[in-house]
């Protein structure tokens, strides 16, 4: 299918691609051609819940990052944020598709059969059905806030996804192994900005410190687990995020040190939710998620039978 014009490619009939569903980023199941064998003896609905949460984190964070296009301080940074968003969107597609394989009951009822599982999950769930942590959904602040959110998110996700490479579910393990170097690059990019801003001018230092202080109350939640996903951790399919906390704190401490930034809260352990609650993982979100989804889902919901 060699075509010079990208738009022709979208309308071209192809026996390989078939009818193209209009709203997905791709036109095929991202797990197409991947062995879908389910892990034996595992609590599959719990495994699906766990994988869904990690997929929702990536999806909502990708959407938030893409909203920075045309707002970043320089063109190169817009390209960087769009690339990071694309990596996360790819991870989200794989994880949502796998979650639906692990538990077909996750697919929202009443969605037309030709809509792939990943799109059914992304576009036809309500905010209460999303399982992302609140860190990824809260509204934007300034660029310092963005860097803080990306640093905290990537550092935390890297620890979790790195351990997920040992999952008893071979598909989840493979998706995780692919994602680790991607997330490491995102984290290092965010850390680089934290240094530049923190160890920069008085104004950039002030705003970087403010960004970290603003996201800090959302950190405690990152290390919690919902009851519904707990069996997946016991089964060796999932990862208990609490086991990654020391690594997270170590990285944050080192980056802050080099960036001449003090602790964002009085004490990282006491800060945030005390005691921490699994807010997003149990479907309890801020109002910002509803607004975000209203925009992200508007076209798919207005034209549920839409095709290219």
């Amino acid at each position: 299918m060699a075509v010079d014009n990208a738009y022709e490619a979208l309308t071209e009939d192809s026996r390989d691609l078939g009818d193209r569903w209009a709203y997905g980023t791709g036109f095929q199941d991202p797990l197409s051609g991947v062995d879908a064998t389910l892990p034996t003896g595992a609590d599959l609905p719990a495994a699906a819940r766990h994988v869904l949460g990690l997929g929702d984190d990536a999806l909502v964070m990708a959407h938030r990052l893409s909203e920075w296009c045309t707002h970043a301080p320089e063109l190169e940074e817009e390209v960087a944020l769009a690339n990071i968003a694309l990596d996360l969107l790819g991870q989200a597609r794989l994880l949502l598709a796998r979650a639906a394989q692990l538990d077909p009951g996750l697919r929202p009822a009443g969605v037309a059969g030709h809509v792939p599982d990943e799109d059914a999950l992304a576009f036809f769930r309500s905010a209460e059905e999303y399982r992302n942590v609140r860190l990824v959904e809260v509204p934007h602040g300034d660029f310092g806030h963005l860097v803080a959110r990306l640093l905290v998110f990537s550092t935390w996700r890297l620890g979790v996804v790195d351990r997920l490479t040992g999952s008893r579910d071979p598909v989840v393990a493979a998706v995780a192994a692919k994602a680790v170097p991607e997330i490491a690059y995102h984290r290092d990019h965010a850390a680089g900005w934290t240094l530049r801003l923190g160890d920069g001018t008085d104004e950039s230092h002030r705003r970087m410190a403010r960004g970290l202080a603003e996201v800090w109350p959302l950190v405690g939640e990152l290390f919690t687990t919902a009851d519904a996903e707990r069996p997946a951790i016991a089964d060796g399919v999932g990862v208990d995020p609490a086991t990654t906390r020391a690594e997270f704190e170590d990285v944050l401490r080192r980056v802050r040190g080099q960036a001449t930034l003090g602790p964002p809260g009085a004490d990282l352990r006491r800060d945030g939710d005390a005691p921490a609650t699994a807010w997003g993982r149990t479907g309890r979100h801020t109002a910002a998620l509803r607004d975000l989804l209203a925009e992200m889902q508007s076209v798919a919901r207005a034209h549920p039978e839409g095709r290219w």
Partner: protein
Amino acid sequence: MTVTVSSPELDRARAAAGAVVDPELPMLTLVDLGVLRSVEIEPPARVVVTVTPTYSGCPALVEMRADLVAALDRAGFPDVDIRTALSPPWSSDWITPAGRAALREHGIAPPGPAPRRGRGPVPLRLEPPPSPRCPRCDSPDTDQVAAFGATACRALRRCRGCGEPFEQVRAL
């Protein structure tokens, strides 16, 4: 079940699949890029191609699959099954020496060695990656301008020797 048969048919299928180029780096074939894992024939006439994505969100994979199907169709193999291998994950170390030469020839610096890690957490890297030589003037004195480039797999650099900007395929 996939049976490996050495035959003129299989050679022809491999040649057809091996000539397909990457949609984003068209100076590279999918073999050069290291994303074409295997081409086999399942009797009687089904060609089974295994590919691996470079990045999780690589939008080019859809086009690669379509191009493979089309190329094999033109070579007389209408029955094609494209499978995806996620594991082991693709690494830029898999770009072949021929691929690296082709990149350099087109003004794109090939990637350095992929970051290695031992046990324990993924090391934090606050320094920019080692500087590649300028693909135009071969100067070793180059700066990173941006950690991300026009596609997910590239970064943007500038040569201090000749002053020209150039892209590098990121080490992954």
